């Protein structure tokens, strides 16, 4: 022991302390170095006194939720980098027209319209829907289209289950029933397991987005179920204690809704909206936007 470098001896002391050895017993290992090592042993004992407790479960949960929301946000931005702002609508539209001219309007697009998740032409179907959503100028028209595409996703999932095809899928719908292992969302049986990411406070009646995979047994293995919220931009047409109307769209208010107290009719606003059923929207928050020129 005595020929070892002092750094090695210190490491032995740290290991011995970690294993619960008595400091006096440890010092007996190094009779010749006692004078030098004893103060260091005391310092190690002090350093160990700062040893922290484990984190609280709630803190872990909070951090996890925050991280997943941000991951989703960045993931959306990544997708937009391709089909979004950096790919201007006009260029996208022209490209699509060229594609139609090349492949024939009734050919590829018609085929893609019938495609299901996992098919080669399915991404084209989503791209066309995305384009149509973007070209819809009115909020109301966009909302109607969004509901139509939501229903299309549900039909696709149902088709895949009927065909017993195993594919990754996503769809949105209302939680009709939630039991410990199986949920029913938009009439589809969804299996939730401990690995399933549940994002947001989800209850029966909530409108959610589901990411998962079809199974041969006829249900969806859920990877993620997320409470769906969306933003509604527009002019505030009406505001009362029960609801507000933004550019013709009625949105209900509940005691949890956070409404900017300065709001007056005619303001340009953005509302973060949660849909609890296909025909009723709830405001989580409504904020006044600066008007043009201000």
């Amino acid at each position, binding site marked *: 022991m005595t020929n070892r470098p*002092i*750094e*090695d001896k*210190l*490491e032995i002391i*740290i290991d011995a302390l970690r294993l619960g050895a008595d400091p006096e017993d440890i010092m007996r290992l190094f009779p010749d170095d006692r004078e030098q090592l004893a*103060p*260091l042993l*005391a*310092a*190690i004992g*002090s*350093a*160990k*006194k*700062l*040893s*922290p*407790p*484990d*984190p609280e479960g709630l*803190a*872990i949960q*909070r*951090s*996890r939720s*925050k*991280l*997943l929301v*941000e*991951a*989703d946000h*960045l*993931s959306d*931005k*990544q997708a937009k980098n391709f089909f979004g702002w950096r790919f201007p609508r006009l260029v996208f539209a022209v490209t699509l027209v060229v594609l139609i001219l090349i492949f024939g309007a009734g050919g590829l697009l018609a085929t893609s319209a019938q495609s299901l998740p996992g098919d080669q032409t399915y991404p084209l179907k989503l791209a066309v829907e995305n384009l149509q959503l973007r070209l819809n100028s009115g909020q109301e028209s966009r909302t109607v289209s969004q509901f139509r595409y939501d229903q299309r996703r549900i039909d696709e999932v149902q088709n895949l289950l009927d065909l017993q095809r195993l594919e990754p899928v996503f769809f949105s719908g209302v939680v009709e029933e939630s039991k410990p292992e199986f949920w029913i969302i938009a009439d589809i049986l969804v299996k939730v397991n401990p*690995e399933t*990411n549940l994002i947001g406070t989800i209850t029966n009646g909530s409108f959610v987005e589901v*990411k998962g995979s079809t199974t041969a047994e006829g249900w969806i293995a859920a*990877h*993620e179920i997320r409470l769906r919220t969306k933003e509604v931009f527009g002019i505030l047409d009406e505001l009362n204690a029960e609801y507000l109307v933004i550019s013709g769209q009625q949105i209900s208010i509940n005691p949890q809704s956070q409404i900017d107290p300065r709001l007056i009719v005619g303001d340009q606003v953005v509302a973060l909206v949660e849909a609890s059923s296909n025909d009723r929207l709830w405001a989580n928050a409504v904020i006044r936007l600066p008007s043009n020129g201000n």
Partner: protein
Amino acid sequence: MADSQPIDISRLLRLDPSTVAAVHDTYYSEVYRYARYRLGDGVAAEDLTSDVFMKLLEALNNGSGPRESIKGWLMGTANNLINDYYRKHYRRQEMNIEDVDLQSNINPIEISEEKDEILLIRKAMLSLTQLQQHVLALRFGGGYSLEETAGIMGKNINAVKALQFRAIAALREEMEKLQL
């Protein structure tokens, strides 16, 4: 503290939610314990740990995330954020006794003496270089072995042993100055 289950980096780069969640759940406690050891405050450690994971997302999104070891990257980032934290709060490093957060199961009669001692140890610790604080926090806060610490710091084992020796000797010296 054995290395965790393999993480699919390609899925992580795509910000796949289940992989992001798996990274968070695997490493949260380790990063928190390290941060709590260095900062001494539970709330600040929670905030900083959360920031470390947000930085990871940011880096992944910019294509500059971990190359070899996720754990090494997270701990390195935690170290940098803590160093920044102390730079920003330099003038507030002189702590009050009330700032020291103790576990609640300590006998109330002993709390005052214990708090004084912890406060002084922490004060002595803050006098060390950032690298010395880093190595002690990894060993005694994170509970990492010498080998794991060397891996996280990207140094060889002998270099870590030497650094650790200097850190403990410096801590002893500072404690003597504080009559501990």
